[in-house]
């Protein structure tokens, strides 16, 4: 891993950014419109959001490229824009990056399913992710963050594709929900297998994001800590979304959400950010608690 980033992770808690999707919706992104389109149509709004997160204290922000893979863009007839969407995405974030900050290239799921549930093969998905990672690297991101993966095989394809595209650090997060038997992805992947196999493919940081809020994420981090020695990244939702008067709201306030920060760190999280519903205010409140020296992590 790049020494500056590794040094940071080993020396203190690292703060990731919060949600992009919910911030875009709050700024008028219409239902059903791909967020990546705004990299081209409203770069100033994307820039505003990145700036807000950096100003809130985030060490790392993610590019607005969650659905920026060819397969997902194709469902909206935008696959011809895959290059622009990713490179512009990187450019926008880098333009507002402060000294000491980092820009992560964000990679999310394709929305397609592997055989036998769907018709795709791991090799096909790996190519798609290789393309996206290459573009993000061309745009000069400093690391790749794969997230919200619900299928371990797809996640592995993303890690492999990214690993092929670059020597930059690759982070990989899955999204788990709690069932009667414990934390699993919707495809049935368990936590220990997921973390082990992601590491096996070359991920240098592993973790979880989305689906769950607090305190569930604390519990999940505790479990993840038992299953890996890699740095762990955790980005919880601000609870499960609810509809109030025709608007989507998230039940956890910034204060409530941030109140779990200590527990998350003690449970073993090295990098903490926010997911759906957790905006700049959430990050701002977590910053002083996260960006402290970690006596329990020994430097490499």
């Amino acid at each position, binding site marked *: 891993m790049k020494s500056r980033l590794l040094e940071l992770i080993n020396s203190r808690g690292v703060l990731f950014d919060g949600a992009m999707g919910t911030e875009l919706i709050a700024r008028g992104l219409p239902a059903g419109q791909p967020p990546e389109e705004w990299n081209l149509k409203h770069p100033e709004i994307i820039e505003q959001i990145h700036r807000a997160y950096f100003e809130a204290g985030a060490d790392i922000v993610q590019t607005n490229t969650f659905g920026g893979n060819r397969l997902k863009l194709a469902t909206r007839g935008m696959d011809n824009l895959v290059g622009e969407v990713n490179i512009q995405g990187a450019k926008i974030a880098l333009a507002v990056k402060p000294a000491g900050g980092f820009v992560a290239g964000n990679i999310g799921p394709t*929305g397609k399913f592997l055989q036998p549930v769907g018709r795709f093969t791991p090799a096909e998905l790996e190519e798609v992710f290789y393309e996206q990672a290459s573009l993000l690297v061309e745009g000069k991101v400093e690391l790749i963050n794969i997230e919200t993966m619900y299928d371990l095989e797809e996640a592995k394809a993303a890690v492999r594709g990214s690993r092929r595209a670059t020597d930059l650090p690759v982070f990989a997060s899955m999204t788990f929900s709690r069932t009667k038997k414990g934390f699993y992805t919707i495809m049935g992947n368990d936590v220990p297998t997921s973390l082990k196999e992601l590491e096996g493919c070359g991920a240098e940081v592993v973790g979880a994001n989305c689906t769950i809020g607090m305190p569930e994420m604390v519990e999940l981090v505790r479990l993840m800590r038992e299953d890996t020695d890699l740095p762990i990244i955790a980005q919880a939702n601000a609870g499960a979304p609810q509809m109030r008067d025709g608007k989507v709201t998230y039940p956890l306030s910034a204060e409530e959400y941030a109140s779990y920060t200590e527990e998350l760190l003690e449970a073993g999280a090295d990098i903490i950010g926010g997911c759906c519903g957790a905006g700049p205010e959430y990050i701002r409140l977590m910053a002083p608690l996260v960006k402290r020296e970690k006596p329990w992590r020994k430097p490499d």
Partner: protein
Amino acid sequence: MDRQEDVFAGMKEALLKGDKEEAIRWAKLSLGMGVNPLDSIDQGLTPGIQQVGKLWEEGEYFLPQLVIAAECMKAAMKVLEPAISQKGEKKHGVGKVVIGTAEGDIHDIGKTLVATLLSVNGLEIVDLGADVPIIQMVNRAVEEEADLICISALLTTTMLGQKRLIELLNEKGIRHRFKVMVGGAPASQQWAEEIGADAYGENALEAVAEAKKLIGI
């Protein structure tokens, strides 16, 4: 010589194992034995898919098992269907459902599962697919003289399409003509009540139970 019960058990097992070939084999065997195809559905396939649903609720089965079981069921149904029509005991005419995933939303596995299960229960299904403009859903429901409109959404953004559907029906003065059920992870009983829907299907099996109640079968 296999008895009826063996056939039904075999069908159920095929669904639990996700073995399409076996499901087809049992379906063919049942017809060869003269078993009433409607009994095969009621006592073999349906209990099979219900058991799959239970295992999913218990956290033992996951999405792949649900999808594959539904495909096994569809495959078995394909074998049985001609025999059902032949007998003139078509369960069709029991009710018609227009189903789709809301505009802007491409998620369709849950919706397709519900459509499959509803059709197996004898309802006539008009599956509009995913990313369906709300106005299209309304127009098709009117054209088809549907009894029930089922609308699925997996994103908080596209969920608003469910609210829009009810508003549109009200605006056109035709709300009373249809029952409306909403589904998808972000939806809830509370949401259904808030927007004036008739029911909320928490999962595919619940959706079928609610649909049957709404249609009155």
